[in-house]
Protein backbone atom coordinates (compact mmCIF):
# COMPACT_ATOMS: atom_id res chain seq x y z
CA UNK A 1 0.00 0.00 0.00
CA UNK A 2 1.11 3.53 -0.74
CA UNK A 3 1.57 6.16 1.92
CA UNK A 4 -0.17 9.35 0.86
CA UNK A 5 -1.45 12.43 2.63
CA UNK A 6 -5.01 13.04 3.68
CA UNK A 7 -5.25 15.84 1.09
CA UNK A 8 -3.94 13.58 -1.67
CA UNK A 9 -6.35 10.87 -0.68
CA UNK A 10 -9.26 13.26 -1.11
CA UNK A 11 -7.99 14.43 -4.50
CA UNK A 12 -7.61 10.84 -5.62
CA UNK A 13 -11.13 10.02 -4.58
CA UNK A 14 -12.52 12.81 -6.73
CA UNK A 15 -10.30 12.02 -9.71
CA UNK A 16 -11.12 8.32 -9.62
CA UNK A 17 -14.82 8.93 -9.38
CA UNK A 18 -14.67 11.44 -12.23
CA UNK A 19 -12.91 8.82 -14.34
CA UNK A 20 -15.38 6.17 -13.34
CA UNK A 21 -18.54 8.15 -14.06
CA UNK A 22 -18.68 11.06 -16.44
CA UNK A 23 -21.79 12.43 -14.77
CA UNK A 24 -19.55 13.47 -11.87
CA UNK A 25 -18.75 17.17 -12.22
CA UNK A 26 -17.18 19.58 -9.79
CA UNK A 27 -17.49 23.30 -9.09
CA UNK A 28 -15.61 25.63 -6.75
CA UNK A 29 -13.49 28.74 -6.59
CA UNK A 30 -10.28 26.74 -6.55
CA UNK A 31 -8.94 23.22 -6.98
CA UNK A 32 -5.73 21.51 -5.95
CA UNK A 33 -3.69 20.43 -8.95
CA UNK A 34 -5.13 20.98 -12.39
CA UNK A 35 -8.19 18.75 -12.76
CA UNK A 36 -9.34 20.75 -15.79
CA UNK A 37 -6.44 19.27 -17.71
CA UNK A 38 -7.79 15.75 -17.40
CA UNK A 39 -11.50 16.40 -17.13
CA UNK A 40 -12.03 19.53 -19.16
CA UNK A 41 -13.61 22.90 -18.53
CA UNK A 42 -17.12 21.59 -18.73
CA UNK A 43 -16.81 19.17 -15.84
CA UNK A 44 -14.45 21.20 -13.67
CA UNK A 45 -15.72 24.74 -13.24
CA UNK A 46 -14.21 27.72 -11.56
CA UNK A 47 -16.99 29.82 -10.13
CA UNK A 48 -17.78 33.27 -8.85
CA UNK A 49 -17.92 33.53 -5.04
CA UNK A 50 -21.60 32.64 -4.75
CA UNK A 51 -21.90 29.68 -2.41
CA UNK A 52 -25.66 29.88 -2.18
CA UNK A 53 -26.30 29.51 -5.89
CA UNK A 54 -23.58 26.87 -6.16
CA UNK A 55 -25.20 24.80 -3.45
CA UNK A 56 -28.62 24.90 -5.04
CA UNK A 57 -27.12 24.47 -8.47
CA UNK A 58 -25.51 21.24 -7.35
CA UNK A 59 -28.85 20.03 -6.14
CA UNK A 60 -30.63 21.10 -9.31
CA UNK A 61 -28.05 19.45 -11.56
CA UNK A 62 -28.28 16.32 -9.40
CA UNK A 63 -32.03 16.28 -9.98
CA UNK A 64 -31.28 16.28 -13.70
CA UNK A 65 -28.94 13.31 -13.82
CA UNK A 66 -25.54 14.68 -12.84
CA UNK A 67 -23.50 13.92 -9.76
CA UNK A 68 -22.06 17.28 -8.77
CA UNK A 69 -19.35 17.84 -6.20
CA UNK A 70 -19.69 21.35 -4.83
CA UNK A 71 -16.60 22.55 -3.05
CA UNK A 72 -17.45 25.13 -0.42
CA UNK A 73 -13.81 25.22 0.69
CA UNK A 74 -14.03 26.27 4.36
CA UNK A 75 -17.22 25.28 6.16
CA UNK A 76 -17.35 28.92 7.22
CA UNK A 77 -18.19 30.03 3.72
CA UNK A 78 -21.21 27.84 3.30
CA UNK A 79 -23.19 29.61 5.99
CA UNK A 80 -24.21 32.01 3.23
CA UNK A 81 -25.67 28.92 1.53
CA UNK A 82 -27.49 27.55 4.53
CA UNK A 83 -30.94 28.01 3.04
CA UNK A 84 -30.07 25.77 0.14
CA UNK A 85 -28.73 23.17 2.55
CA UNK A 86 -31.38 23.23 5.25
CA UNK A 87 -34.48 24.21 3.34
CA UNK A 88 -33.71 22.54 0.04
CA UNK A 89 -31.04 19.82 0.00
CA UNK A 90 -32.04 18.07 3.22
CA UNK A 91 -35.78 18.14 2.54
CA UNK A 92 -36.23 17.91 -1.20
CA UNK A 93 -36.38 14.15 -1.57
CA UNK A 94 -38.76 13.48 1.29
CA UNK A 95 -41.04 16.44 0.74
CA UNK A 96 -41.46 15.53 -2.92
CA UNK A 97 -42.37 11.98 -1.92
CA UNK A 98 -39.23 10.36 -3.24
CA UNK A 99 -39.79 11.33 -6.87
CA UNK A 100 -36.12 11.76 -7.62
CA UNK A 101 -32.66 11.20 -6.23
CA UNK A 102 -30.23 14.01 -5.49
CA UNK A 103 -26.69 12.67 -5.69
CA UNK A 104 -24.73 15.76 -4.73
CA UNK A 105 -21.62 15.94 -2.57
CA UNK A 106 -20.70 19.06 -0.64
CA UNK A 107 -17.10 19.28 0.47
CA UNK A 108 -15.59 21.62 3.03
CA UNK A 109 -12.75 21.92 5.49
CA UNK A 110 -13.23 22.24 9.23
CA UNK A 111 -11.35 22.83 12.42
CA UNK A 112 -9.02 25.09 14.32
CA UNK A 113 -5.54 24.85 15.67
CA UNK A 114 -3.86 26.87 12.95
CA UNK A 115 -4.06 30.45 14.13
CA UNK A 116 -6.89 31.33 11.77
CA UNK A 117 -9.22 32.83 14.39
CA UNK A 118 -12.96 32.75 14.92
CA UNK A 119 -14.43 32.69 11.46
CA UNK A 120 -11.93 30.28 9.91
CA UNK A 121 -11.66 27.65 12.64
CA UNK A 122 -15.14 26.17 12.88
CA UNK A 123 -16.30 22.58 13.31
CA UNK A 124 -20.07 22.96 13.25
CA UNK A 125 -20.99 19.50 11.96
CA UNK A 126 -23.68 19.07 14.57
CA UNK A 127 -25.69 21.82 12.90
CA UNK A 128 -25.90 19.64 9.81
CA UNK A 129 -26.48 16.48 11.83
CA UNK A 130 -29.52 18.06 13.39
CA UNK A 131 -31.13 18.67 10.01
CA UNK A 132 -32.73 15.38 9.02
CA UNK A 133 -31.98 14.44 5.45
CA UNK A 134 -28.26 14.91 4.94
CA UNK A 135 -25.59 12.24 5.15
CA UNK A 136 -22.32 13.34 6.71
CA UNK A 137 -18.79 11.98 6.61
CA UNK A 138 -15.89 13.06 8.83
CA UNK A 139 -12.77 11.00 8.11
CA UNK A 140 -9.72 10.88 10.35
CA UNK A 141 -7.16 9.13 8.14
CA UNK A 142 -6.07 9.20 4.49
CA UNK A 143 -7.53 5.76 3.94
CA UNK A 144 -10.92 6.67 5.37
CA UNK A 145 -10.83 10.01 3.61
CA UNK A 146 -10.48 8.37 0.24
CA UNK A 147 -12.88 5.53 0.90
CA UNK A 148 -15.60 7.65 2.45
CA UNK A 149 -15.44 10.41 -0.13
CA UNK A 150 -15.79 7.82 -2.88
CA UNK A 151 -18.85 6.41 -1.14
CA UNK A 152 -20.22 9.92 -0.75
CA UNK A 153 -19.88 10.65 -4.45
CA UNK A 154 -21.57 7.36 -5.32
CA UNK A 155 -24.37 7.87 -2.84
CA UNK A 156 -27.70 8.97 -4.28
CA UNK A 157 -28.32 11.57 -1.59
CA UNK A 158 -26.85 14.89 -0.55
CA UNK A 159 -23.72 14.07 1.43
CA UNK A 160 -21.63 16.62 3.28
CA UNK A 161 -17.94 15.81 3.52
CA UNK A 162 -16.28 17.55 6.45
CA UNK A 163 -12.52 17.49 6.00
CA UNK A 164 -10.43 18.46 8.99
CA UNK A 165 -7.69 20.92 7.98
CA UNK A 166 -5.26 19.78 10.63
CA UNK A 167 -5.24 16.34 9.01
CA UNK A 168 -4.32 17.59 5.53
CA UNK A 169 -0.65 16.80 5.79
CA UNK A 170 -1.06 13.59 7.78
CA UNK A 171 0.14 10.56 5.83
CA UNK A 172 -1.11 7.00 5.96
CA UNK A 173 -1.40 3.81 3.98
CA UNK A 174 -4.19 3.74 1.42
CA UNK A 175 -5.13 0.59 -0.50
CA UNK A 176 -4.29 0.74 -4.21
CA UNK A 177 -7.43 -0.73 -5.66
CA UNK A 178 -10.85 0.91 -5.78
CA UNK A 179 -10.95 1.61 -2.06
CA UNK A 180 -14.42 2.32 -0.77
CA UNK A 181 -15.47 2.69 2.87
CA UNK A 182 -19.22 2.26 3.38
CA UNK A 183 -21.20 5.06 4.97
CA UNK A 184 -22.57 4.41 8.44
CA UNK A 185 -19.89 2.08 9.74
CA UNK A 186 -17.75 3.17 12.69
CA UNK A 187 -14.31 1.73 13.21
CA UNK A 188 -12.72 0.55 16.41
CA UNK A 189 -9.32 2.10 15.79
CA UNK A 190 -7.85 0.52 18.86
CA UNK A 191 -9.38 -2.11 21.02
CA UNK A 192 -9.38 -1.82 24.82
CA UNK A 193 -11.36 -2.82 27.84
CA UNK A 194 -11.23 -0.03 30.42
CA UNK A 195 -12.72 2.97 28.71
CA UNK A 196 -14.27 3.87 25.38
CA UNK A 197 -12.96 7.04 23.80
CA UNK A 198 -14.93 8.27 20.81
CA UNK A 199 -12.82 10.74 18.86
CA UNK A 200 -13.73 12.83 15.86
CA UNK A 201 -11.39 13.75 12.99
CA UNK A 202 -8.09 15.13 14.35
CA UNK A 203 -9.00 13.91 17.81
CA UNK A 204 -9.01 10.29 16.73
CA UNK A 205 -5.25 10.63 16.31
CA UNK A 206 -5.01 12.41 19.63
CA UNK A 207 -7.05 9.75 21.37
CA UNK A 208 -4.79 7.08 19.91
CA UNK A 209 -1.72 8.92 21.18
CA UNK A 210 -3.29 9.16 24.62
CA UNK A 211 -4.17 5.47 24.50
CA UNK A 212 -0.52 4.67 23.76
CA UNK A 213 0.64 6.74 26.69
CA UNK A 214 -1.90 5.29 29.12
CA UNK A 215 -1.10 1.75 28.05
CA UNK A 216 2.10 2.19 30.02
CA UNK A 217 -0.04 2.59 33.13
CA UNK A 218 -2.02 -0.51 32.17
CA UNK A 219 -5.03 1.57 31.25
CA UNK A 220 -6.54 -0.07 28.22
CA UNK A 221 -8.33 2.50 26.06
CA UNK A 222 -10.68 1.55 23.24
CA UNK A 223 -10.71 4.22 20.54
CA UNK A 224 -13.69 4.49 18.23
CA UNK A 225 -13.99 6.66 15.15
CA UNK A 226 -17.60 7.04 13.97
CA UNK A 227 -16.27 8.10 10.52
CA UNK A 228 -19.80 8.83 9.36
CA UNK A 229 -21.85 11.20 11.48
CA UNK A 230 -25.08 10.50 9.59
CA UNK A 231 -25.98 7.69 9.59
CA UNK A 232 -24.27 7.27 12.94
CA UNK A 233 -23.18 3.76 13.83
CA UNK A 234 -24.86 3.82 17.21
CA UNK A 235 -24.53 0.12 17.85
CA UNK A 236 -20.75 -0.06 17.58
CA UNK A 237 -20.40 2.74 20.11
CA UNK A 238 -22.97 1.29 22.49
CA UNK A 239 -21.43 -2.16 22.28
CA UNK A 240 -18.05 -0.72 23.21
CA UNK A 241 -19.52 1.13 26.18
CA UNK A 242 -21.31 -2.00 27.33
CA UNK A 243 -17.91 -3.66 27.32
CA UNK A 244 -15.85 -0.91 29.00
CA UNK A 245 -18.54 0.74 31.12
CA UNK A 246 -16.92 4.11 30.56
CA UNK A 247 -17.23 6.78 27.90
CA UNK A 248 -15.22 9.83 26.90
CA UNK A 249 -16.03 11.79 23.73
CA UNK A 250 -13.49 14.13 22.19
CA UNK A 251 -14.22 16.79 19.63
CA UNK A 252 -13.06 20.30 18.83
CA UNK A 253 -16.53 21.82 18.45
CA UNK A 254 -17.95 23.60 21.48
CA UNK A 255 -19.97 21.21 23.65
CA UNK A 256 -23.47 22.56 23.45
CA UNK A 257 -25.68 20.51 21.11
CA UNK A 258 -22.59 19.01 19.56
CA UNK A 259 -21.89 15.61 18.03
CA UNK A 260 -20.44 14.80 21.44
CA UNK A 261 -23.77 15.63 23.08
CA UNK A 262 -25.52 13.34 20.66
CA UNK A 263 -23.15 10.49 21.29
CA UNK A 264 -23.56 10.89 25.04
CA UNK A 265 -27.34 11.06 24.72
CA UNK A 266 -27.75 8.06 22.46
CA UNK A 267 -25.44 5.99 24.61
CA UNK A 268 -27.26 6.71 27.86
CA UNK A 269 -30.78 6.40 26.52
CA UNK A 270 -30.33 2.71 25.74
CA UNK A 271 -31.32 0.83 28.88
CA UNK A 272 -28.74 -1.96 28.60
CA UNK A 273 -25.91 0.42 27.84
CA UNK A 274 -26.98 2.76 30.61
CA UNK A 275 -26.92 -0.12 33.05
CA UNK A 276 -23.40 -1.05 31.99
CA UNK A 277 -22.09 2.46 32.58
CA UNK A 278 -19.84 2.70 35.63
CA UNK A 279 -19.16 6.44 35.52
CA UNK A 280 -20.59 9.66 34.20
CA UNK A 281 -19.78 9.99 30.48
CA UNK A 282 -17.47 12.90 29.80
CA UNK A 283 -17.28 15.28 26.86
CA UNK A 284 -13.93 16.84 26.02
CA UNK A 285 -14.79 19.73 23.74
CA UNK A 286 -13.70 23.25 22.89
CA UNK A 287 -14.40 26.11 25.24
CA UNK A 288 -17.76 27.73 24.43
CA UNK A 289 -16.19 30.64 22.53
CA UNK A 290 -15.38 31.55 18.94
CA UNK A 291 -11.87 30.16 18.41
CA UNK A 292 -9.45 32.92 19.40
CA UNK A 293 -6.43 33.88 17.29
CA UNK A 294 -3.59 34.13 19.77
CA UNK A 295 -1.83 30.79 20.22
CA UNK A 296 -2.07 30.90 24.00
CA UNK A 297 -5.82 31.37 23.83
CA UNK A 298 -6.38 29.01 20.95
CA UNK A 299 -4.60 26.28 22.89
CA UNK A 300 -6.73 27.04 25.89
CA UNK A 301 -9.89 26.93 23.79
CA UNK A 302 -9.27 23.62 22.01
CA UNK A 303 -9.08 20.19 23.61
CA UNK A 304 -5.66 18.67 24.04
CA UNK A 305 -4.14 15.38 25.18
CA UNK A 306 -3.99 16.52 28.77
CA UNK A 307 -7.72 17.18 28.75
CA UNK A 308 -8.37 13.75 27.26
CA UNK A 309 -6.19 12.10 29.89
CA UNK A 310 -7.93 14.04 32.64
CA UNK A 311 -11.34 12.95 31.42
CA UNK A 312 -10.23 9.33 31.22
CA UNK A 313 -8.94 9.53 34.77
CA UNK A 314 -12.24 11.03 35.90
CA UNK A 315 -14.27 8.17 34.47
CA UNK A 316 -11.84 5.63 35.93
CA UNK A 317 -12.13 6.96 39.45
Amino acid at each position, binding site marked *: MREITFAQALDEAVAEEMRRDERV*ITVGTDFTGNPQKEFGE*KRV*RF*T*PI*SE*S*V*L*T*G*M*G*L*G*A*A*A*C*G*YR*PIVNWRMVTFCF*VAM*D*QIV*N*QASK*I*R*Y*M*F*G*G*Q*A*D*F*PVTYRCTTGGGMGLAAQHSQSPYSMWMHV*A*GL*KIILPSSPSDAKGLLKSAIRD*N*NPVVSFECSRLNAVTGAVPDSDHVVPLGVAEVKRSGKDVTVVGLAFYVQEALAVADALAKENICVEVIDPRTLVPLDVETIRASVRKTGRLVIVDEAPPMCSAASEIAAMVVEDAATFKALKAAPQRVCAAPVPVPYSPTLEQAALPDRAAIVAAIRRVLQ
Partner: protein
Amino acid sequence: MNIDHITLLHKMMLIREFDELALKLRGSGKIYGTVHPYVGQEAVAVGICANLTNADRVTSTHRGHGHCIAKGADVKRMMAELFGRVDGYCKGKGGSMHIADFAVGMLGANGIVGGGLPLATGAALAAQLDGKGNIAVCFFGDGAVAEGEFHEALNISAVWRLPIVFVCENNHYAANNAVAIQHFTADLAVHASAYGIPGVAVDGNDVLAVRETSRGAIERARRGEGPTLLECKTYRWYFHAMRATPPPETRPADEIAAWKARDPIAKLITELISRRELTESEVGTMLREVRTQLDEAVAFAEASPFPDPKDVLVDMYG
Protein backbone atom coordinates in the same frame (compact mmCIF):
# COMPACT_ATOMS: atom_id res chain seq x y z
CA MET B 1 -60.32 27.22 -34.52
CA ASN B 2 -56.72 27.38 -33.44
CA ILE B 3 -55.90 24.40 -31.26
CA ASP B 4 -52.98 26.19 -29.62
CA HIS B 5 -55.12 29.13 -28.61
CA ILE B 6 -57.82 26.87 -27.28
CA THR B 7 -55.23 25.00 -25.27
CA LEU B 8 -53.99 28.25 -23.79
CA LEU B 9 -57.50 29.20 -22.79
CA HIS B 10 -58.25 25.79 -21.40
CA LYS B 11 -55.13 25.78 -19.23
CA MET B 12 -55.83 29.26 -17.93
CA MET B 13 -59.38 28.29 -17.04
CA LEU B 14 -58.20 25.13 -15.40
CA ILE B 15 -55.76 27.09 -13.25
CA ARG B 16 -58.33 29.65 -12.27
CA GLU B 17 -61.01 27.13 -11.42
CA PHE B 18 -58.51 24.98 -9.61
CA ASP B 19 -57.46 27.79 -7.34
CA GLU B 20 -60.98 29.11 -6.80
CA LEU B 21 -61.89 25.61 -5.73
CA ALA B 22 -58.77 25.19 -3.63
CA LEU B 23 -59.70 28.29 -1.66
CA LYS B 24 -63.16 26.93 -1.00
CA LEU B 25 -61.76 23.58 0.03
CA ARG B 26 -59.27 25.29 2.30
CA GLY B 27 -62.16 27.13 3.90
CA SER B 28 -64.04 23.90 4.46
CA GLY B 29 -60.97 22.22 5.93
CA LYS B 30 -60.48 19.61 3.24
CA ILE B 31 -57.19 21.19 2.37
CA TYR B 32 -54.70 21.88 5.15
CA GLY B 33 -51.91 24.38 5.45
CA THR B 34 -51.64 27.44 3.27
CA VAL B 35 -53.05 28.12 -0.19
CA HIS B 36 -51.50 30.90 -2.29
CA PRO B 37 -53.95 31.55 -5.10
CA TYR B 38 -52.61 32.22 -8.58
CA VAL B 39 -55.88 33.72 -9.78
CA GLY B 40 -55.19 36.71 -12.04
CA GLN B 41 -51.72 35.60 -13.07
CA GLU B 42 -52.69 32.65 -15.25
CA ALA B 43 -51.37 34.12 -18.47
CA VAL B 44 -47.81 34.08 -17.19
CA ALA B 45 -47.43 30.38 -16.48
CA VAL B 46 -49.53 29.35 -19.44
CA GLY B 47 -47.93 31.68 -21.95
CA ILE B 48 -44.44 30.62 -21.05
CA CYS B 49 -44.98 26.90 -20.64
CA ALA B 50 -46.64 26.80 -24.06
CA ASN B 51 -43.10 26.99 -25.44
CA LEU B 52 -41.69 24.20 -23.30
CA THR B 53 -41.47 20.43 -23.54
CA ASN B 54 -41.23 17.92 -20.72
CA ALA B 55 -37.47 17.90 -21.22
CA ASP B 56 -37.37 21.57 -20.25
CA ARG B 57 -37.40 22.10 -16.52
CA VAL B 58 -39.11 24.74 -14.44
CA THR B 59 -38.88 25.70 -10.79
CA SER B 60 -41.75 27.38 -9.05
CA THR B 61 -42.66 29.29 -5.90
CA HIS B 62 -45.04 29.17 -2.97
CA ARG B 63 -47.69 30.30 -5.49
CA GLY B 64 -47.12 27.23 -7.58
CA HIS B 65 -50.43 25.68 -8.69
CA GLY B 66 -50.46 27.64 -11.93
CA HIS B 67 -46.94 26.61 -12.88
CA CYS B 68 -47.76 22.97 -12.18
CA ILE B 69 -50.86 22.93 -14.33
CA ALA B 70 -49.24 24.93 -17.11
CA LYS B 71 -46.27 22.56 -17.17
CA GLY B 72 -48.60 19.62 -17.57
CA ALA B 73 -49.15 18.24 -14.10
CA ASP B 74 -52.30 16.23 -13.48
CA VAL B 75 -54.92 18.09 -11.43
CA LYS B 76 -56.05 14.82 -9.88
CA ARG B 77 -52.73 14.19 -8.28
CA MET B 78 -52.35 17.85 -7.39
CA MET B 79 -55.69 17.85 -5.62
CA ALA B 80 -54.83 14.62 -3.83
CA GLU B 81 -51.64 16.29 -2.63
CA LEU B 82 -53.56 19.28 -1.29
CA PHE B 83 -55.82 16.81 0.49
CA GLY B 84 -52.73 15.14 1.99
CA ARG B 85 -53.44 11.78 0.42
CA VAL B 86 -51.15 8.98 -0.77
CA ASP B 87 -52.02 9.48 -4.43
CA GLY B 88 -50.84 13.06 -4.32
CA TYR B 89 -47.69 13.97 -6.19
CA CYS B 90 -45.66 13.83 -3.00
CA LYS B 91 -47.71 11.07 -1.40
CA GLY B 92 -49.14 13.70 0.92
CA LYS B 93 -45.75 14.69 2.27
CA GLY B 94 -45.53 18.02 0.46
CA GLY B 95 -48.83 19.83 0.24
CA SER B 96 -49.53 22.99 -1.71
CA MET B 97 -46.12 24.58 -1.30
CA HIS B 98 -44.14 21.52 -2.34
CA ILE B 99 -45.83 20.02 -5.36
CA ALA B 100 -43.43 18.65 -7.92
CA ASP B 101 -43.82 16.48 -10.98
CA PHE B 102 -40.40 15.50 -12.21
CA ALA B 103 -41.92 13.48 -15.06
CA VAL B 104 -43.13 16.67 -16.76
CA GLY B 105 -40.06 18.69 -15.81
CA MET B 106 -41.69 20.51 -12.92
CA LEU B 107 -38.96 20.53 -10.29
CA GLY B 108 -41.11 21.76 -7.51
CA ALA B 109 -42.87 24.57 -5.79
CA ASN B 110 -40.82 26.18 -3.07
CA GLY B 111 -41.75 27.74 0.24
CA ILE B 112 -38.65 29.91 0.32
CA VAL B 113 -38.73 33.23 -1.49
CA GLY B 114 -35.88 33.02 -3.99
CA GLY B 115 -35.18 29.41 -3.09
CA GLY B 116 -35.93 28.05 -6.55
CA LEU B 117 -33.45 30.26 -8.37
CA PRO B 118 -30.34 28.21 -7.56
CA LEU B 119 -32.14 24.96 -8.34
CA ALA B 120 -33.22 26.23 -11.74
CA THR B 121 -29.68 27.35 -12.40
CA GLY B 122 -28.56 23.79 -11.71
CA ALA B 123 -31.17 22.44 -14.11
CA ALA B 124 -29.83 24.88 -16.69
CA LEU B 125 -26.30 23.67 -16.06
CA ALA B 126 -27.48 20.10 -16.62
CA ALA B 127 -29.21 21.16 -19.83
CA GLN B 128 -26.06 22.87 -21.02
CA LEU B 129 -23.97 19.78 -20.27
CA ASP B 130 -26.55 17.58 -22.00
CA GLY B 131 -26.23 19.76 -25.07
CA LYS B 132 -29.61 18.82 -26.50
CA GLY B 133 -31.12 22.28 -26.66
CA ASN B 134 -33.27 21.91 -23.57
CA ILE B 135 -33.57 24.77 -21.15
CA ALA B 136 -34.66 25.75 -17.66
CA VAL B 137 -37.22 28.33 -16.63
CA CYS B 138 -37.31 29.86 -13.20
CA PHE B 139 -40.49 31.50 -11.91
CA PHE B 140 -40.26 33.92 -9.01
CA GLY B 141 -42.02 36.99 -7.69
CA ASP B 142 -41.11 40.66 -7.41
CA GLY B 143 -40.40 39.99 -3.75
CA ALA B 144 -37.69 37.47 -4.60
CA VAL B 145 -35.74 40.11 -6.50
CA ALA B 146 -34.62 41.53 -3.14
CA GLU B 147 -33.04 38.22 -2.11
CA GLY B 148 -29.36 37.64 -2.74
CA GLU B 149 -30.03 34.37 -4.52
CA PHE B 150 -31.65 36.27 -7.37
CA HIS B 151 -28.46 38.17 -8.01
CA GLU B 152 -26.19 35.16 -7.63
CA ALA B 153 -28.27 33.11 -10.04
CA LEU B 154 -28.34 35.80 -12.70
CA ASN B 155 -24.64 36.45 -12.37
CA ILE B 156 -23.42 32.90 -12.74
CA SER B 157 -25.95 32.13 -15.46
CA ALA B 158 -24.72 35.11 -17.43
CA VAL B 159 -21.05 34.26 -16.97
CA TRP B 160 -21.64 30.65 -17.99
CA ARG B 161 -24.24 31.51 -20.67
CA LEU B 162 -26.62 28.99 -19.21
CA PRO B 163 -29.81 28.12 -21.11
CA ILE B 164 -32.27 29.65 -18.68
CA VAL B 165 -35.08 32.16 -18.65
CA PHE B 166 -35.65 34.01 -15.39
CA VAL B 167 -39.32 34.87 -15.18
CA CYS B 168 -40.14 37.54 -12.65
CA GLU B 169 -43.86 37.57 -12.03
CA ASN B 170 -44.20 41.13 -10.93
CA ASN B 171 -47.61 41.21 -9.31
CA HIS B 172 -46.58 44.42 -7.56
CA TYR B 173 -46.81 43.04 -4.06
CA ALA B 174 -44.83 40.79 -1.79
CA ALA B 175 -47.42 39.71 0.74
CA ASN B 176 -48.79 43.09 1.87
CA ASN B 177 -45.84 45.15 0.77
CA ALA B 178 -46.15 47.14 -2.43
CA VAL B 179 -43.24 47.07 -4.79
CA ALA B 180 -42.13 50.55 -3.68
CA ILE B 181 -41.31 49.15 -0.26
CA GLN B 182 -39.08 46.58 -1.85
CA HIS B 183 -37.43 48.22 -4.81
CA PHE B 184 -36.27 51.53 -6.18
CA THR B 185 -38.26 50.93 -9.33
CA ALA B 186 -41.31 48.91 -10.29
CA ASP B 187 -39.51 47.91 -13.51
CA LEU B 188 -37.58 44.88 -12.43
CA ALA B 189 -36.22 43.93 -15.84
CA VAL B 190 -33.63 46.69 -15.27
CA HIS B 191 -31.61 44.18 -13.29
CA ALA B 192 -30.60 42.40 -16.47
CA SER B 193 -28.22 45.03 -17.74
CA ALA B 194 -25.57 44.60 -15.07
CA TYR B 195 -25.24 40.99 -16.16
CA GLY B 196 -25.11 41.76 -19.85
CA ILE B 197 -28.25 39.79 -20.59
CA PRO B 198 -31.49 40.93 -22.19
CA GLY B 199 -34.08 42.30 -19.81
CA VAL B 200 -37.56 42.29 -21.26
CA ALA B 201 -40.88 43.34 -19.80
CA VAL B 202 -44.19 42.08 -21.06
CA ASP B 203 -47.86 42.47 -20.20
CA GLY B 204 -48.32 39.46 -17.99
CA ASN B 205 -52.08 39.57 -18.44
CA ASP B 206 -51.82 39.01 -22.19
CA VAL B 207 -51.14 35.35 -22.74
CA LEU B 208 -50.36 35.74 -26.42
CA ALA B 209 -47.83 38.45 -25.67
CA VAL B 210 -46.27 36.35 -22.94
CA ARG B 211 -46.04 33.37 -25.23
CA GLU B 212 -44.54 35.42 -28.03
CA THR B 213 -42.04 37.34 -25.93
CA SER B 214 -40.94 34.35 -23.94
CA ARG B 215 -40.52 32.35 -27.12
CA GLY B 216 -37.74 34.73 -28.12
CA ALA B 217 -36.00 34.28 -24.80
CA ILE B 218 -36.48 30.54 -24.84
CA GLU B 219 -35.20 30.14 -28.39
CA ARG B 220 -32.22 32.25 -27.48
CA ALA B 221 -31.47 29.95 -24.57
CA ARG B 222 -31.92 26.87 -26.75
CA ARG B 223 -29.40 28.29 -29.21
CA GLY B 224 -26.86 28.55 -26.40
CA GLU B 225 -26.89 32.34 -26.28
CA GLY B 226 -27.53 32.52 -22.57
CA PRO B 227 -30.11 33.73 -20.11
CA THR B 228 -32.83 36.34 -20.30
CA LEU B 229 -34.63 38.15 -17.51
CA LEU B 230 -38.29 38.35 -18.44
CA GLU B 231 -40.54 40.50 -16.31
CA CYS B 232 -44.26 39.76 -16.55
CA LYS B 233 -46.35 42.55 -15.11
CA THR B 234 -49.44 41.18 -13.51
CA TYR B 235 -51.56 41.19 -10.38
CA ARG B 236 -53.11 38.71 -8.03
CA TRP B 237 -56.83 39.05 -7.52
CA TYR B 238 -56.91 37.79 -3.98
CA PHE B 239 -55.00 38.00 -0.74
CA HIS B 240 -51.44 36.72 -0.51
CA ALA B 241 -52.35 33.46 1.21
CA MET B 242 -55.16 31.75 3.00
CA ARG B 243 -55.12 29.40 5.95
CA ALA B 244 -58.36 28.76 7.84
CA THR B 245 -60.03 32.01 6.82
CA PRO B 246 -59.40 34.63 4.12
CA PRO B 247 -57.29 37.50 5.45
CA PRO B 248 -58.49 41.08 5.00
CA GLU B 249 -57.64 42.86 1.76
CA THR B 250 -55.13 45.66 2.28
CA ARG B 251 -54.65 46.87 -1.28
CA PRO B 252 -56.53 49.84 -2.78
CA ALA B 253 -59.97 48.83 -4.08
CA ASP B 254 -59.60 50.83 -7.29
CA GLU B 255 -56.27 49.20 -8.04
CA ILE B 256 -57.83 45.78 -7.67
CA ALA B 257 -60.78 46.78 -9.82
CA ALA B 258 -58.53 48.13 -12.56
CA TRP B 259 -56.56 44.91 -12.72
CA LYS B 260 -59.64 42.75 -12.62
CA ALA B 261 -60.89 44.71 -15.61
CA ARG B 262 -57.78 43.40 -17.34
CA ASP B 263 -58.63 39.77 -16.62
CA PRO B 264 -56.24 37.67 -18.71
CA ILE B 265 -58.87 35.02 -19.38
CA ALA B 266 -61.57 37.45 -20.44
CA LYS B 267 -59.01 39.17 -22.61
CA LEU B 268 -58.14 35.99 -24.46
CA ILE B 269 -61.78 35.03 -24.84
CA THR B 270 -62.63 38.41 -26.31
CA GLU B 271 -59.68 38.17 -28.64
CA LEU B 272 -60.53 34.66 -29.81
CA ILE B 273 -64.18 35.46 -30.26
CA SER B 274 -63.34 38.54 -32.27
CA ARG B 275 -61.04 36.40 -34.42
CA ARG B 276 -63.87 33.91 -34.73
CA GLU B 277 -61.75 31.19 -33.28
CA LEU B 278 -64.24 30.64 -30.50
CA THR B 279 -67.92 31.18 -29.63
CA GLU B 280 -69.55 32.13 -26.36
CA SER B 281 -71.18 28.77 -26.16
CA GLU B 282 -67.86 27.01 -26.62
CA VAL B 283 -66.56 28.99 -23.70
CA GLY B 284 -69.47 27.78 -21.62
CA THR B 285 -68.82 24.22 -22.64
CA MET B 286 -65.16 24.50 -21.86
CA LEU B 287 -65.88 25.92 -18.42
CA ARG B 288 -68.26 23.08 -17.68
CA GLU B 289 -65.68 20.58 -18.81
CA VAL B 290 -63.06 22.17 -16.63
CA ARG B 291 -65.39 22.04 -13.66
CA THR B 292 -66.20 18.42 -14.32
CA GLN B 293 -62.49 17.68 -14.53
CA LEU B 294 -62.00 19.35 -11.19
CA ASP B 295 -64.95 17.55 -9.64
CA GLU B 296 -63.25 14.37 -10.71
CA ALA B 297 -60.02 15.56 -9.21
CA VAL B 298 -61.77 16.18 -5.92
CA ALA B 299 -63.43 12.77 -6.08
CA PHE B 300 -60.05 11.23 -6.82
CA ALA B 301 -58.52 13.03 -3.86
CA GLU B 302 -61.37 12.08 -1.56
CA ALA B 303 -61.08 8.45 -2.58
CA SER B 304 -57.38 8.33 -1.97
CA PRO B 305 -56.42 7.18 1.53
CA PHE B 306 -54.43 9.20 3.99
CA PRO B 307 -50.84 8.00 4.27
CA ASP B 308 -50.23 5.26 6.76
CA PRO B 309 -48.52 6.78 9.79
CA LYS B 310 -46.16 3.82 9.68
CA ASP B 311 -44.71 5.21 6.46
CA VAL B 312 -43.45 8.34 8.13
CA LEU B 313 -39.81 7.35 7.56
CA VAL B 314 -40.27 6.28 3.93
CA ASP B 315 -38.72 8.34 1.09
CA MET B 316 -35.92 9.83 3.15
CA TYR B 317 -32.99 8.39 1.23
CA GLY B 318 -32.46 7.07 -2.27
